[in-house]
């Protein structure tokens, strides 16, 4: 009897195990995935030395931060990563992260709280750290015990989770053994992809990390390749030498991809708003027509946003009507309506403000923004506002904006429509501040005392959105959509479902799989 039971038991186990093993065999990483970028920033492999969003694509593929965030709109969606959970003190100054057990680095060594403390102490010491805002508010990072890391902040910060998501955790023992220089050549992290090789200015090759706790990639090899030329990118995608163009900018490339039966254009939601800010609004003593909100409202009314989206963005965007607040989101009051293109009303407002014949101003642009700037300038011509276009090189523009040396005029720029974005744009003295307004600053500071979530969104909707709409601290233009050119033999459903991992540039290639 016992023997018979044993045999039945073995058979049952066999029946259960065979399908399971064949299933795990079916997700064995295989094949190669090539993703094209126009550039990858400074291409640093060191998690504290990447300096632009593009370079984060490399480090965040190799590594894993404390928390991951995904963007599907209208707000950031934070998910546990190396930290399985977190606790925030009521004053928003103490953040406690519980470190997940069982995470291994690529060399098989387990990730511990000491690795987290080590990485973040490197962040605090590096002058190149991109999360300077994080660095400047952190008082200390320490291990409370073998599973908890404590961040003490100098000031309350409701957006600290975003900052905690910007650095991949590196192994303390390995880094100390090989040194920082060697680490930056052969890094080890705990992300879904392992480093294989790199040729600066050309490509980075990675391999699937089969021991990853969150997601084992479907592809064996991932290549992030730098191709600055659009036509070369398109040729590579058409011939199958590449699988994805990661950032398809509006232009001829969009139609080429749309018209090819082997390719797809996938648009992903973004929080990025193109807007115009008025340089004098951050200089309290400066006399400028833009001080009068009727002038700002008039300029906003005189822009045909639908036409801009259709002609200059190839339809990959939507008209925006709120500075730094996502339209149609829980943060916007339902009584607010889109800005209608209305020349007559714009002229009336200009007359009321004392400019019946318009005025002359300057529009500061970099070369890539020229077409959009010219379109806006020609629209303003109809209300008598003559905007002279001044083209500047990117480095010179960054310096002029930082030092606030641009003369009275307008600058085309991009910002994030999130509460964290509002925190940067509406408080005085910041590098990204668009206006000095006492009431707006007071409201923003009040918003920042509420932890990010539904309560904060409710506050923005009821207390802030109507004020911002009426104030026009900056002129909203377009909410961009990010577009990717993908070959049809790539299965993207899982990838599209998660939205955008981390900030826009991270490929999240572990969610892509070959089509059967």
């Amino acid at each position: 009897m016992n023997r018979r039971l044993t045999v039945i038991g073995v058979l049952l186990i066999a029946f259960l195990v065979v399908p399971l093993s064949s299933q795990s065999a079916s997700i064995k990483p295989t094949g190669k995935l090539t993703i094209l970028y126009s550039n990858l920033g400074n291409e640093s492999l060191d998690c504290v030395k990447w300096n632009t969003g593009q370079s984060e694509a490399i480090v965040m593929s190799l590594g894993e931060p404390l928390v991951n965030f995904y963007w599907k709109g209208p707000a950031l969606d934070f998910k546990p990563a190396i930290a399985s959970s977190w606790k925030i003190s009521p004053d928003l100054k103490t953040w406690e992260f519980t470190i997940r057990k069982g995470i291994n680095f690529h060399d098989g060594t387990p990730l511990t709280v000491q690795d987290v403390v080590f990485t973040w102490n490197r962040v605090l010491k590096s002058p190149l750290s991109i999360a300077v805002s994080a660095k400047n508010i952190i008082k200390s990072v320490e291990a409370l015990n073998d599973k908890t890391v404590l961040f003490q902040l100098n000031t309350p910060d409701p957006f600290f989770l975003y900052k905690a998501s910007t650095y991949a955790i590196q192994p303390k023992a390995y880094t100390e053994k090989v040194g920082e220089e060697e680490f930056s050549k052969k890094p080890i992290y705990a992300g879904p992809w392992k480093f294989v090789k790199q040729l600066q200015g050309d490509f980075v090759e990675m391999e699937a990390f089969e021991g990853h706790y969150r997601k084992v990639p479907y592809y064996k090899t991932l290549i992030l390749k730098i191709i600055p030329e659009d036509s070369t990118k398109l040729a590579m995608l058409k011939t199958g030498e590449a699988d994805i163009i990661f950032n398809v900018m509006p232009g001829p490339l969009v139609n080429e991809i749309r018209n090819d039966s082997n390719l797809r254009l996938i648009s992903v939601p973004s929080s990025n708003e193109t807007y115009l800010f008025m340089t004098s609004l951050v200089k309290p003593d400066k006399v400028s027509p833009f001080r009068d909100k009727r002038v700002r409202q008039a300029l906003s009314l005189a822009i045909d946003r639908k036409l801009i989206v259709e002609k200059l963005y190839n339809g990959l965007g939507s008209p925006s009507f709120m500075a730094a607040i996502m339209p149609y989101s829980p943060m916007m009051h339902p009584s607010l309506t889109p800005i209608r293109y209305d020349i007559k009303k714009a002229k009336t407002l200009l007359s009321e403000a004392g400019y019946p014949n318009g005025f002359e101003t300057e529009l500061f642009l970099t070369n890539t923004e020229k077409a959009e700037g010219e379109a806006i300038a020609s629209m303003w011509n109809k209300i008598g506002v003559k905007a002279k276009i001044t083209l500047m090189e990117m480095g010179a523009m960054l310096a002029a904006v930082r030092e606030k040396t641009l003369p009275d005029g307008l600058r085309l720029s991009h910002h994030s429509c999130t509460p964290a974005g509002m925190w940067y744009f509406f408080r005085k003295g910041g590098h990204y501040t668009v206006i000095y307004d006492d009431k707006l600053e007071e409201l923003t500071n009040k918003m920042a005392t509420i932890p990010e979530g539904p309560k904060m969104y409710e506050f923005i909707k009821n207390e802030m959105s109507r004020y911002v709409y009426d104030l026009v601290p900056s002129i909203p233009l377009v909410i961009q959509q990010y577009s990717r050119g993908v070959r049809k033999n790539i299965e993207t459903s899982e990838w599209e479902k998660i939205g955008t991992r981390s900030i826009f540039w991270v490929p999240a290639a572990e969610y892509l799989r070959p089509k059967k």
Partner: protein
Amino acid sequence: MQRYILKRIFLAFVTIYLVTTLVFFLARITGDPMDLIMSAESTQKDWDMMRHQLGLDKPIYLQYTDFIAGVFIGNFGNSLRWDKPCLSLILVHLPATLQLTICALLFSWVFGISIGTLSAMRPNGLMDRFGKIFAMLGQSMPIFWVGILLILTFAVRWQIFPTSGRGGLLNLVLPSITLGWYTMASMTRMTRSSMLDVLDMEFIKMTRIKGLSEVLVICKHAFKNAMIPILTLGSLQVGILLGGSVITETIFSWPGMGRLMVQSVFSRDFPLIQACVIITSTIFITINLLVDITYGYIDPRIRYQ
């Protein structure tokens, strides 16, 4: 001859030194690289720390003397963008550029000299007309346009060659044609006119009267005498091709020094710009020097004493 060679070597060193100085100051006119390196939110302390790390806090004359002293021992400093020694970055990318330049040069010389010679043998004949059109196209079409056209035709439409990147021999074909066509055009015209001059000379008529075969007349007697201007042009073409590789490498995503140089300019990477320019110009000056010296050995009429 020896004195001449020594004099030319000395002048080559002076030229390289002048290029080194010029590039040091010109690179700095583009602006402050810190604007592109630092985050907008960086504190003054971060800026000071980074400036110190990069040596940009020193007075310009000290930066210059440090730079010159470094160049003499092959130390061009670290790239601001990639945080790696410039020389090692260049050594990784230089072979790709040299490979492309040599292939383009071979394409230019082999086809240019052949078509030029055949054109000279039958002026206004079919080959001469074809050569004229071919040369005119090569001279008038911009490199970036030729490159894109070749990619669309041979890589995308017919899929004979890869679109871009460095790999096997097939990867070399399209970028070599793109880069070499321009120089091949001038080589064709120069060979044709030089050969026509020589073929009209008395000694060539004499070889024909003596009954030598046309192949022998052209290859042995005429070509050798027509070589001086062709050699001069050929050496100058090395410089044109090294410079032209900047565009070709960008279109074909060729991981060479040209692309590296473009990236370093856009990121205001002074040390890397300096290193790339110095090494490219040193190669160019050295080749010119070698060609000047070779003249004396090829043509016995040339004596430099």
